[in-house]
């Protein structure tokens, strides 16, 4: 068994597609209309095009918004991406106007930072230091 797909609940799929590709740098993989305006919209890392796909899932369920709002209020990212250098990525994304709720912080064996994906989620980026 392996993880081939994981998802984030996004408020607006088109806005999410732009943010995840143009700002974060992921690559589109699938974009299939599903009816009702929803799309099966996935992106992958350019470093791993055959790896885990990230599904940009529309926030259709009424419980989704209160759930996301509560997580954001407490600063909780429920999705995390690996980067080579958190500080460098922080500088790059800040220049693109991305809002961080946690600046790069050395947590001992890992450096992490947390930013707002503009689609209702906080995302963590991390690299291991030992």
């Amino acid at each position, binding site marked *: 068994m392996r993880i081939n797909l994981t998802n984030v609940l996004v408020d607006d799929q088109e806005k999410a597609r732009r943010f995840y590709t143009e700002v974060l740098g992921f690559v589109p993989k699938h974009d299939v209309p599903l009816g009702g305006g929803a799309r099966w919209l996935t992106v992958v890392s350019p470093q791993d095009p055959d790896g885990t796909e990230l599904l940009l899932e529309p926030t259709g369920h009424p419980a989704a918004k209160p759930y996301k*709002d509560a997580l*954001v*209020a*407490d*600063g*909780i*990212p429920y999705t995390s991406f690996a980067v080579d250098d958190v500080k460098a990525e922080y500088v790059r994304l800040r220049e693109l106007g991305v809002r961080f*709720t*946690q*600046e790069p*912080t050395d*947590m*001992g*064996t*890992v450096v*992490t930072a*947390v930013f707002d994906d503009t689609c209702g989620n*906080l995302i963590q980026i991390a690299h291991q230091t030992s």
Partner: protein
Amino acid sequence: MGDVFKALADPTRRTILDELTDRDGQTLFEICARLTNKHGLGSSRQAVSQHLDVLEAAGLVKTRRDGRYKFHYIDTEPLEPIVERWLNKPGKRGPT
């Protein structure tokens, strides 16, 4: 002042203040992550939230909502009466 001493009596709460001194304005998530990863304190998020409530009641932590996020800040003002009470009396710095 009693609330301040009670708030400071707990080592986890003192560690929270240490971490807010390191960087002011943290989310609950960041405080929890720092306690776990830097100090090996495996307190639940709920327990940390309760510690923050005690610190806030004592006036040592202030919270501020900024848009959709909530940040915690240290406030050292309640510590000043302690300094004035015992440490800040000119001419009475030690036995003569």
